[in-house]
């Protein structure tokens, strides 16, 4: 099913500028500066990379462990974001209750919050002496910090708003007519959500998931504050890179390259969808 719910201005003929769509000359120079500015640091990384030692640096067990942990926890964080974030986005987009816009502002706060602040907040809420974590520890003898769960929670906290924002945006602009039609044909609300609404917003759902995943993969501040850093359990790739930088900058550069490569691949995958849908971001 191909939902045509808006004028398809996003459609473009690749490689050809249609008349009237060419970038105006006054915009060209600053656009070039912006592109250079964003690409320069990446160039620095590429030029300074110790290519000869790369295979050796990357095959270190600690680096592989960190990468593995990062990939697993980012994927888990994305899964949790989907499971809980999509319903939240639905509630935010469709609810008419008072206070809903305040709620929207609050739940998207992690987008702008310094990650360290997020990590500290998590520690004070879910840590061993936290307002909720304290009971968890008292009743079950279980404390979250320093576990892989803490990594996943920290990453979910930071990444979920990205998904919520993109899905909510899509839900707001989605054609309600199709949902109403389904309802008049006797579809129950959850069935409508599953069989009409979700396919309708699928592109944004994918775009939001990839964004959330990439954000979780790069998460540093909240993770180290809430989960700490221990090789194999909580030391994710960004933390491993930061610690490597203290002693072995070459290794840090090499590992940064890997993280960069993975992120570029993820965003590249996203690009197709992004071009055609407008995710609200």
């Amino acid at each position, binding site marked *: 099913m191909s939902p045509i719910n808006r004028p398809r201005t996003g459609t473009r003929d690749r490689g050809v500028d249609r008349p009237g769509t060419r970038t105006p000359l006054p915009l060209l120079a600053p656009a070039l500066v912006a592109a250079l500015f964003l690409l320069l640091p990446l160039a620095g990384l590429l030029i300074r990379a110790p290519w000869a030692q790369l295979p050796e640096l990357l095959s270190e067990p600690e680096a592989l462990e960190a990468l593995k942990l990062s990939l697993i926890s980012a994927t888990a964080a994305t899964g949790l974001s989907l499971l809980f974030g999509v319903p939240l986005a639905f509630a935010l987009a469709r609810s008419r209750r008072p206070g809903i816009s305040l709620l929207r502002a609050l739940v998207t706060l992690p987008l702008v919050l310094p990650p360290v602040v997020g990590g500290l907040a998590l520690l004070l809420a879910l840590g061993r*002496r936290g307002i909720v974590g304290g009971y968890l520890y008292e009743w079950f003898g279980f*404390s979250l910090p320093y576990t892989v769960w803490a990594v996943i929670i920290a990453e979910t906290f930071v990444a979920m708003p990205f998904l919520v924002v993109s899905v909510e945006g899509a839900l707001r602009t989605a054609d309600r007519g199709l949902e109403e039609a389904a309802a008049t044909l006797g579809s129950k609300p959850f069935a409508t959500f599953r069989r009409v609404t979700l396919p309708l917003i699928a592109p944004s759902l994918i775009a939001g998931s990839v964004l959330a995943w990439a954000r979780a993969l790069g998460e540093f501040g909240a993770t*180290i504050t809430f989960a700490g850093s221990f090789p194999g359990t*909580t030391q994710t790739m960004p933390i491993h890179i930061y*610690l490597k930088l203290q002693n072995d900058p070459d290794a840090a550069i090499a590992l940064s390259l890997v993280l960069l490569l993975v992120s570029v691949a993820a965003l590249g995958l996203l690009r197709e969808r992004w071009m055609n849908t407008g995710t609200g971001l």
Partner: protein
Amino acid sequence: MRRHTLTATAVLAAAALSLTACGGSSDSDDTSSSSSSSSGLSGEITVFAAASLTESFTALGTSFEAENPGTTVTFSFAASSALAEQINSGAPADVFASAATKNMDQVVDAGNASDPVTFANNTMEIAVPADNPAKVDSLDDLTDKDTKVVLCAEDVPCGVSARAVFDNAGITVTPVSNEVDVKSTLSKITLGEADAGVVYVTDVKAAGDKVTGVEIPDDVNASTAYPIATLKGSENAELAKAFEDYVLSDTGATQLESAGFAKP
């Protein structure tokens, strides 16, 4: 009531008197340095200092500025290893105070400083939350699996020293987390999210009553030397050198000693 007030007044008066007495002795310092400030010290410098120097150097900076009106000393505190890396990448710093000779050597080897001078020594201590939930009272207690120990990462000086202590004592400690510097290690203990950590004696002292220190026996303890140097890239080398001299002076030594540092 009245009697209480009287006692309080008496105590206050005594305190004021003793303060004046202290002030009297530092007065001579003031006059000597005001002559040095008239000799042209002014401007700003940035001092890169190890995280464990946070409290003592902040205090030293304040008194240095007071003695040399017209000067501003800005600090950047972090793990010495991170600071050394920043300096070698061209960070605009004027003075570097490191918690390990190794990190100072990196800066010297890169040609960014010369002739570092050791100004203090520090030893390690076990820090536990004020209520000591895991009842840690010796090094051996750190080997207990149920005790959540946090350490500095092996890549930063306090992590190297902590591991030297374990080697000396012949014990194996598995931390739950390797933190990026000594202050973040300590904060996990202050917050009660860790049962114990091995940090510098001075950090335990600086944390006040939020943590309790458990001494490490001298024969297994590890110490680290703190070298200081004016950096080649300094744009205000005169002021930078003056601050370095101030840290090395008797006034500096006294302040560092009161923070728990040992004389080199």
